[in-house]
């Protein structure tokens, strides 16, 4: 797990948003060692006076990475993080929707991290070597189904291994996102993840296939997620950290492989040939709708031609 923490900490891109106005008493870097409290009253005073150098994003990051694995996506984690940074616990009132903002931050963060790891840096250490070998090969040299399966599985593996510290609290995270106040943002994050995953798996379509493929990926992602939280081994956190991996050789992995088998519904939808090419006829429903439309206009024209 140490490698994981280092990996996630190493890619805190975009989270360091320092305000433009430099204050004399303001310290420009926000990297303070964990556990260090504010030592000077002027620091807290300056934080309270002007715009705070502790942005929401930075605070969420600190909270999620440090406190959520122990306290869950909860108010306690937010308060502990506030105390950690040196703010009053009342500062958590800034998050008016509550702990769900932690969940949202984490989901965007895992997506960013996976994108950077797999696409920009080519860092495949979170992916199994066999799968990575297949996924990194150029798509023209490998059979299509195998390549798509390898890409999807490697992205899934990256994301689920990044999430491993939060496995115990993931049901809480999903429940938070499903509440009426926040389900729309959750849906937005899901669509972003689905789009990212579909693009990574090689979808470059520009027609109805775009929608069908993303629907299939969304169902794959959600069912794998549910399987992952349902197959949480009944051990304490220490033992869980001691085992090699929460994803490999587990039921979730087998489930994902079954879902992506060659004759599965997913592959059928993914590789369904495009039926709407101009050389082929349109679907029956489209033809019936056109008939209804033309019939309605012809009927209206018949009424306008006069009466006999």
């Amino acid at each position, binding site marked *: 797990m140490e490698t994981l923490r280092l990996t996630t900490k190493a890619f805190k891109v975009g989270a360091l948003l320092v305000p433009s106005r430099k204050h004399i008493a303001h310290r420009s870097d926000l990297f303070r060692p964990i556990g260090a409290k504010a030592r000077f009253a002027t620091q807290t005073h300056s934080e309270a006076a002007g715009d705070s150098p502790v942005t929401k994003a930075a605070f969420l990051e600190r909270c999620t990475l440090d406190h959520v694995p122990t306290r869950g996506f909860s108010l306690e984690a937010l308060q502990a993080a506030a105390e950690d940074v040196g703010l009053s616990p009342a500062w958590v009132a800034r998050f008016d929707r509550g702990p769900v903002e932690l969940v949202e931050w984490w989901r965007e963060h895992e997506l960013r991290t996976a994108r950077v790891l797999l696409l920009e840096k080519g860092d495949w250490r979170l992916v199994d070597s066999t799968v990575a070998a297949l996924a990194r090969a150029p798509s023209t040299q490998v059979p299509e189904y195998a390549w798509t399966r390898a890409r999807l599985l490697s992205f899934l593996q990256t994301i689920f291994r990044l999430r491993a510290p939060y496995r115990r609290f993931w049901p809480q995270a999903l429940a938070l996102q499903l509440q009426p106040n926040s389900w729309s943002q959750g849906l937005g994050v899901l669509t972003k993840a689905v789009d990212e995953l579909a693009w990574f798996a090689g979808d470059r379509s520009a027609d109805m296939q775009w929608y069908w493929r993303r629907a299939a990926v969304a169902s794959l992602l959600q069912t794998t997620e549910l399987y992952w939280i349902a197959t949480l081994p009944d051990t304490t956190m220490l033992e869980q950290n001691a085992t090699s991996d929460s994803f490999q050789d587990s039921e979730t992995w087998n489930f994902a492989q079954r879902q992506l088998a060659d004759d599965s519904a997913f592959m059928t939808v993914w590789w369904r040939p495009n039926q709407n090419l101009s050389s082929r006829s349109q679907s*029956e429903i489209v033809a019936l709708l056109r008939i209804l439309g033309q019939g309605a206009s012809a*009927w209206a024209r018949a009424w306008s031609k006069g009466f*006999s």
Partner: protein
Amino acid sequence: MPETGSPTASADVAIVGAGVVGSTLALALHRHLIEPGARILLVDPRRAPAWQPINDTAAGLRTVAITPASQKFLASLGVWERLPQGAITAFPTLFAYGRSAQEKITFDAADCVGRLSTEPPALGYIVEETALLETLHRCLERVAGEKEPTGNASGRDGTSSVSGSICWSRACFDTLTWPASHPWAQLHLSEAEHPPFAVAASLVIAADGARSRVRHQTELTWIGRSYHQRAVVAIVENREPNLVAIQRFLPRGPLAILPMGQHGMYSNIVWSTNESEADWLETEASASQFLDATHAALHRVNVDGGQHAPYRRFLSQSSYPIDRRSFPVVPSFQRLIPSRTDGRDRWSFPLHFGSATGYDANRVVLVGDAAHVVHPLAGQGVNLGLADAQTLARVLKQAWQTGRDIGDPSVLAVYTRERLPLNTAMLVTLSALRRVFAFPTRTRGLGSTLASSFRGLGMQFIERVAPLRSSVVRIATGEPWL
């Protein structure tokens, strides 16, 4: 009659296509457009073959299902009484069932609420198409022969008769033009060994089928789609007499058994299925294999779609004995009856659906298959065409008796207003019905079981609720329900 250049021949109504709908319409117009009599020109080079009762060979493999409403129309024209009795089979019951044992429904002639007690109880009539065409053409020839020698629709020579005249031209239709010099339309016809000639017509009726050439000349287009399926047609002899019309909704399409012959000793099989299976049934299967496949398709319970033609692999297993019948009302067959005209015992036609974008254009009106093509699962194609003919005859009669120009757009609009919604509604309903019974195409376990249960529930509901059942029967038998 054959003239070149400007037409000297003219007709009041020109009907292109002398099929069932075209011939019926010609007879109806002849009967109604009187005082002064209208000159009707019928254009079709084809002749109907002679019909004889079915014993070891049949005159033709096709039959049409005539609803009581169409039967009344044909009787009013004097066609029905001239049909040979051996060609008509009245069926009082319709049994429709699906893939699983719970999807079944029975319709009876007693459900026709509007039926008079003097009429024979029948849900519909199965008539051999050859006999119907031959009878219609005989009636046309009788009518055409009765007229005065000027029955050649040749110009305005001053003679006008009280009742109209029908002239049947064996020429082929070429093109249609609307010259600026004359307010009427011009048909250009051509015949073998004759130069092409033109006939001026006040109204042109396109009754020449789905690929209507007349429709191509107008601005009306066709919106349609092929089902990529074919219907295999055959005539078989039953082991026992059967007067129940049966239809099984298989996953790929319906399989219909229509009683034929004087006492229902023969059956007409219409099996709609995919192209590959239809090819196998029509060309590769032997007669006994065809009969075995039909028997298996009718009696096997919980039929699934299968990836490939299921009956082929089933036949090799020979696991379904011929004498085991899950549905006793369904007859078993003993032999195929070939056709007399070409000696083939099986025939197939492609299935498609579609509708024209309008039913009337500049002095042109579409009837029958030229206007709409539906799936044959309810036997409604010919009946919609006959209803079109009936409506058009009534509309033109009203216009003619008030001295109006029958090619006027406002006259034709009355016909369009009345028939277009009904035909489109029937088209959409039949397409929806086909989709309901085709779902799911491959067995997917829970999905297909649930679909079967819902379908069975719906069918039992319709069967038990009497008003619903009689409304369905009223719609299917063509009585006015709107």
